Structures are given as C-alpha cells and as structure tokens.
C-alpha cells in the first residue's frame, strides 16, 4: 500500500527534523514548526527526492511567507498526477 503524500511529508518532518507529530497539520506553517529558511530548503529537497520530482519555482516559492504543509502537499499531488 502506497503512503499518502501527506504522510510521507509528515514522517520526514518527525524523523529528520524533529517536529512534534501533534503539530503536523495541513494548515501548519513550516516556519512555525521550527524550520528556518535553510532547513526549510533542506526539507523541500528531501521531499522532492522522496517523490522523485522537482518543484519548479513558478509552482511554489519556498521563500514565501506563511508557506503551509498543505500547500506543498497539493503541489506534489498535482505534479504526481501529471507524471
């Protein structure tokens, strides 16, 4: 059974970035989960590697304020569909 993209991202956040699982929600803002600009980039790289894709900047600006986990998840779902 393939994991849902959200669960893959959640597992990355807990296992590699030490984020408390109880805080992980679609509407969670990544910088409020303790990720700074550098570790946010690291997280996006890790997510892209996990799904074998690259998110183009026009689809998502990783430096935008208030970027939520749900927003990243939606972009990944959309890109996976078009593969």
């Amino acid at each position, binding site marked *: 059974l393939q994991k849902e993209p959200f669960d893959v991202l959640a597992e990355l956040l807990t296992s590699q970035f030490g984020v408390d699982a109880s805080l992980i929600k679609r509407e969670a803002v990544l910088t409020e989960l303790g990720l700074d600009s*550098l570790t946010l980039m*690291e997280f996006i*790289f890790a997510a892209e590697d996990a799904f074998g894709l690259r998110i183009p900047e026009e689809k998502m600006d990783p430096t935008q304020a208030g970027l939520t986990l749900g927003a990243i998840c939606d972009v990944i779902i959309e890109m996976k569909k078009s593969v």
Partner: protein
Amino acid sequence: MTANGVVVTGYAQVSALGLTLADFDQALLDARSGCQALDVALVGQDPFVAPVCASAFSQAGLIAPSKVPMDRATAMALSVAKAAVAHADLQLDNTERERLGVFWGSGMAGAYSFDNFSYALYVEHKRTRPTSVVTTMPNAPAAEISLFSQAQGASLSYACACASSSVAIGEALYAIKSGRIDVAIVGGSESMLTSAIVANWNAMRVLAAIKSDASQACRPFDANRTGFALGEGAGALIIESQAHAQRRGARALGLLSGYATNCDGHHITQPQAAGQVRVMRQALHMAGLQPSDIGYINAHGTATSAGDWAEAQSVAEVFGERGVAVSSTKSLHGHLLGAGGVVELMVCLRALETGVLPSTLNCDELDPKMALDVIQGQARHVKGLRHAMSNSFAFGGTNAALIVSAV
C-alpha cells in the same frame, strides 16, 4: 588542591570500547580489542585490508538542535556531550550561559559526510543539499553542542590532528583559570571510516599490517609493531572551577592539574623526543609535581616505528628508565585522532577511580631498545594512584600533555 583548581565532574565516550562507562571499564580491564579487518576495493586503487576499530554508535533518531543533518562525528559529539552533562548532573537551566563554553577537538571533522557528498555528486550524479556546508564544517560538532547547551561563553574548535581534543581540554582549563568562564563542555570527536579516507591513511603506510587476526595488528611498543588501526568515536568531559562545582554541590571526579602544549617545529609527521620532553615537563611544572609523583601514563603509543621510539626516549628522559607505568590503549580503541586525547584522558580518570591500569594489548615482546615499564599482559591493579598523565603527539608537530589528579 589549589584554590583555583579546575575539576572534572562528568564524562562520557563512545568508541569501539562501547557506549557506556561500564562497557568502557570492562573492555579496558579485559584488554578487549575492538579492531576488525576492513576490505577496501576502490576502482583505480590496489585492494587492501585495513585494521579499523568501528563504534556500534547509531545516530538513528538523533536530531541536531539546528535540525541540520549531522555528520556521524557530530552526532557522536552531541551524544557524548549530552551524556557528560547528565553524568555531571549539570543543570543547564541553572547555569550562567555567558560563563559556559564549548571547546572541541577534531582532526578531520565533517570528512565522513564530505566524502559521502562528493561520492553522491561525482559518482551518483545527485544534487548537493542546501545544508552540505554546515554539515561538513569543522566546527559543526562545537556548534551543535553550543546550541544544545546554549553556551554563550565560547564555542571553539581545535584542529591539531591527534592532539586536537587534548588541546581543546587544556585551552578550556586556561579559560576557566583566567576567570573568563566557569564551566566548559570539552572533548573531541572523529569518524572517518569511509573507504576513501581509509585509503588515504593506507597510502601513507602508517596502518598496521594484518597477519592473521586484525585484533593483533596494532602492537604499541612491541618489537614487531607496524602501525595503527584507525578508530572512530567521541569523548566529552565537563570541567569547571572548583568554586563553581562546590556552589552547585557537584562531585569532583578528578582535578585537571596540569596541561602543556608546544610544537616540535621540526617535521610534518616525524615526531621529535625533545619537544615531548619539554611538554611533559611543562605540564608537571603547571601541576606543581615531580616526575616521581606520576603513577601512570597513557602514552600516545600509536604503534608506528618512529612514534613509539620517540616517546620511549622522551618518557625515559623525563621519568627515568622504567620510572613510571606506561600503557597505550590504542590497540583496543584504535587511533581516534581528534577524539584520542579525551578518550585516553578518560582512561586516566577511570584509573584514578578504579585503580586499574590497563595493559597494552599486543605488546608481547617489548622493543629491546626501550627502557620503559610498559604494562603487558594483564591490567595492573594499584592502590592510591594520585596522578596520571595522558600524552598526545600530533602530525604537524603539536604536542600536548594533560595531568589528572585524585581529589
């Protein structure tokens, strides 16, 4: 004890000797080697077999305070720093952070990850990561320990090859004695057992030859020594002013009574007895001790032909022929490079506590040129050990000697 003495109040290590203090003591008592044979076959290189002492340490589940991926050595460093803080019962929340420092040694910090990242780039054609720089920077171990402990007094990294952590400990001792800080997390870490790094060491022809059993390859002070085994590990001490330790009711596990560092100024790799003689005498002078006061020396004892011979001469000159019990524990834990000084000082601290002077595994036939009292065969049990010395003599010519004393 002097009024402005600096005491050790906690320690921890990980190495091939184990992950706990009990494992460490037992391995030293039994002279149990952590050395194994590593087959290295790289394209373009002659295949070879090297003796290595790997640690069972696992960084799974350990997340850096920075959340940046950790080099294996950094993870070891953070792990032992946390364990040493717990061992010392140092309550960080009650510690004045501006007077807490981190002093850390490493010979090739970040090398493990740097090698893996380069492999990923050049061979696997994977893209590099945004955090690669901060994962591999030589001060990453000190930085993560500083973040964990919120130390604001100092965060300093020392790279003096095999003497790195001895120098880190000694310079922290001076920082406390000068009144700049009260307490420090000190030590060193090293993890370099990748094929490429082992190949670099092998090419230097300093690694011990394996005849049949890897655990017999490294033979300090033995007539048939051929070199060392590469190890990996980390060690941390908590050191603090005696006044600070007393204020918080901490138990002192030893007095850090003497330290000196100097340089041969002679050769990039070849040791020189004269510099070693001076550094041991300088450390004795700082401690206010005579050579006859030292009951045990944990030698640098790398088991290279030139290294052991230089040290045999310098120890005999300072302490007299067969004047002091000496052992090298490198045949057990391997050459820990940046972590060597601190782990070997821990051997001395445990000797003060337990009275066990570990033997020199594989020194079956002492080199007849050497007028040394090398502990061979079984560990020696002594009563009333007061002072012990740890020597570290590095590539680059840096020498360091540390003395710990019973309190």
